[in-house]
């Protein structure tokens, strides 16, 4: 089950020089309870992706779904049902199957294909996803947050939150830690009495390794690590289901970093929250994430189980990127690092965006952008893996 799913998400910015394709056709999912790591070099669009998913930036196109819930299995022959879903309208049998499970589809319901094995049914505000899984078709309900306005979005904001890289600029120097935690709790009506509020605040501070006495402190009285822990506490106090962590430890010393990572790991269990962990530090993401997505020039080029991707990276960019990372071991040296530099995301060329730096470039790479397809138990966007299927 996914807490967040994006389909063909795009975010383009217009600049004087042309169109910046910051997030270009990204389809990925964050599974409930996991940490999805996103790595990539600066300018690859990882931060924009995180912010677009939370709708802090309005997406250009594509879909963002939140909080997938399984409804029922379609009790129809899968091949036949797939045929029904190919039609634009809703087949009566499909309608009946929905009705049997107490989900009525109106006459306005429309079905559209999202990828070879999944479909979306839009019906007056309700969104269903039909996904092919082994020998059955499963129906899920999701919240489509792509087009809802900010007023409506605010209701969902407490379920999804973000922690930024720089805790100094994320905290108001004139507000105490109490003030920082108070605001979200009051705005989202999380507590009914002052007592309950204090108890909640102390509990969350304790989870982050801070004490009640820190409530009366101002940001300048805290160390960098403590400030970041306050930011995380603030994000967690609304008991979100999904948290985007955008380089949360990049501004901190290593000994502080490891402490914060441990606290984040503990908080994940306690609050049953899923993380999207964005970082350029590849060794770090390797340690903390269950699955890993690698971004290059606005696209996710490879996504899969962290251990698989590390043991056997498939995309030539992933391979070169991992090769370039220095390891904290004097016997392991970087050989043959990635050459050249990331090209400008303004009007990227036709074809694969990595083609001009790729050691495995073929004729097709400059003409056609590779599809993001299943291979070796993960998804890879590379022409090398055209016919190979896991």
């Amino acid at each position, binding site marked *: 089950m996914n807490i967040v799913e994006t389909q063909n998400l795009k975010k383009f910015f217009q600049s004087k020089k042309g169109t910046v394709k910051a997030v270009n056709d990204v389809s990925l999912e964050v599974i409930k309870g996991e940490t999805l790591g996103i790595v990539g*070099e*600066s300018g690859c669009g990882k931060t924009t992706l995180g912010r677009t998913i939370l709708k802090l930036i309005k997406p250009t196109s594509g879909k963002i779904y939140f909080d997938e819930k399984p409804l029922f299995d379609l009790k129809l022959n899968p091949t036949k049902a797939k045929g029904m879903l190919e039609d634009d309208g809703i087949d009566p049998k499909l309608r009946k199957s929905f009705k049997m499970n107490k989900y009525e589809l109106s006459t306005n319901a429309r079905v559209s294909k999202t990828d070879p094995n999944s479909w979306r049914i839009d019906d007056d505000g309700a969104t269903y996803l039909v996904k092919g899984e082994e020998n059955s078709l499963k129906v899920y309900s999701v919240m489509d947050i792509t087009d809802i306005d900010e007023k409506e979005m605010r209701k969902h904001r407490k379920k999804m939150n973000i922690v930024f890289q720089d805790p100094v600029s994320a905290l108001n120097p004139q507000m105490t830690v109490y003030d920082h935690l108070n605001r979200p709790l009051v705005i989202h009506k999380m507590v009914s009495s002052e007592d309950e509020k204090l108890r909640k605040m102390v509990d969350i501070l304790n989870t982050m390794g801070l004490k009640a006495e820190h409530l009366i402190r101002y940001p300048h009285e805290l*160390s*960098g*690590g403590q400030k970041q822990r306050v930011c995380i506490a603030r994000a967690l106090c609304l008991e979100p289901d999904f948290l985007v962590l955008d380089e949360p430890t990049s501004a901190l*010393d*290593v*000994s*502080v*970093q*490891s*402490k914060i*990572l*441990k606290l984040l*790991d503990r908080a994940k269990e306690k609050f049953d929250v899923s993380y999207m962990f964005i970082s*350029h*530090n*590849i*060794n*770090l993401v*390797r*340690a*903390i994430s269950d699955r890993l997505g690698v971004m290059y020039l606005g696209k996710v080029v490879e996504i899969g189980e962290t251990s698989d991707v590390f043991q056997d990276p498939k995309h030539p960019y992933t391979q*070169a*990127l991992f090769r*370039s*990372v*220095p*390891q*904290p*071991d*004097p*016997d*392991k*040296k*970087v050989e043959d*690092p*990635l*050459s050249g*530099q*990331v090209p400008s995301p303004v009007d990227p060329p036709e074809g694969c965006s990595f083609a001009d730096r790729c050691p495995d470039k073929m004729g097709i790479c400059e003409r056609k952008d590779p599809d993001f397809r299943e291979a070796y138990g993960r998804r890879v966007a590379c022409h090398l893996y055209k016919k190979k299927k896991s």
Partner: protein
Amino acid sequence: MDFSTEEGTVKALDNVSLTVKKGEIHGLIGETGCGKSVTSLTVLGLLDNNAIIRGGKVLYKGVDLLGLKEKTLRKEVRGNEISMIFQNPSTSLNPVYTAGEQIKESIVLYQSDDKEEAQRLVLDELDRVKLPDPEDVYEKYPHELSGGMMQRIMIAMMLACNSNLLIADEPTTALDVSIQSQFLKVLEELKEKEDLSILYITHDMAVISEICDVVTVMYGGQIAETAEVHDIFNNPRHPYTKGLIHSVPGVKLDIEEFETIPGTVPRLINPPPGCRFHPRCEYAQEICKEKKPSLEYIDNDHFVACHFWEEVK
């Protein structure tokens, strides 16, 4: 070396001794506020006016730099003998001159004031730091270059002075991994081919292990440990070094196994008595609170400042 501030005296450096040998890359590692940058600024005499040097020497080729006049330092040491590059190259370059002109300034000062020859030498320098298409880069303004290219311009400028010692203060912290590894390769080649000595200041253990021959670990303005790079990683004897290495992602692959160092870095206005690390140290005993450990020799140029180094495994 102390800093006098409104809040009191900051004991920024306490009895710091380290040696950079010819043709060696010496890594200086430590966390924020441990005194690693201040050490390098002391070497070049670039400290602010509120700095008071209480004692000690900075010996460069046998000459005590602390005894030299500002004018001598500027004319004969900085640039000529010792150069420095900083963390953020975009603030070190002048935005209104092209990259080539800025390097030419060094050439004219230190090598040749013949216009055409200087221009040719600039192109040579750009080639030496592996910048593609030197003619093109020559005409570029800093804002047209990437961070990695700017950092290489800084090195080219340094090379143009024919310095023998390079002090690099967090030179790759602002760079991406691919650019960082290209940059590190350039430094290694310069060491190999031209016998350049480098004092490399960073907080990144992975970078240290990648290019350094010798490593010095600093904590709270003091030296905790110095050793050959393999010894530091495989046989750390200071509890702080050990904690630092085990909190680096990559040494341990699972978050569960990460070690953390409790507490925070001490403020140097009022540093803990005895060993400055004792409030955070798992090996600490009574003596650590009272007596400052001296830098002891273990073997193979491995020095450590800890009363209980024999117990640290």
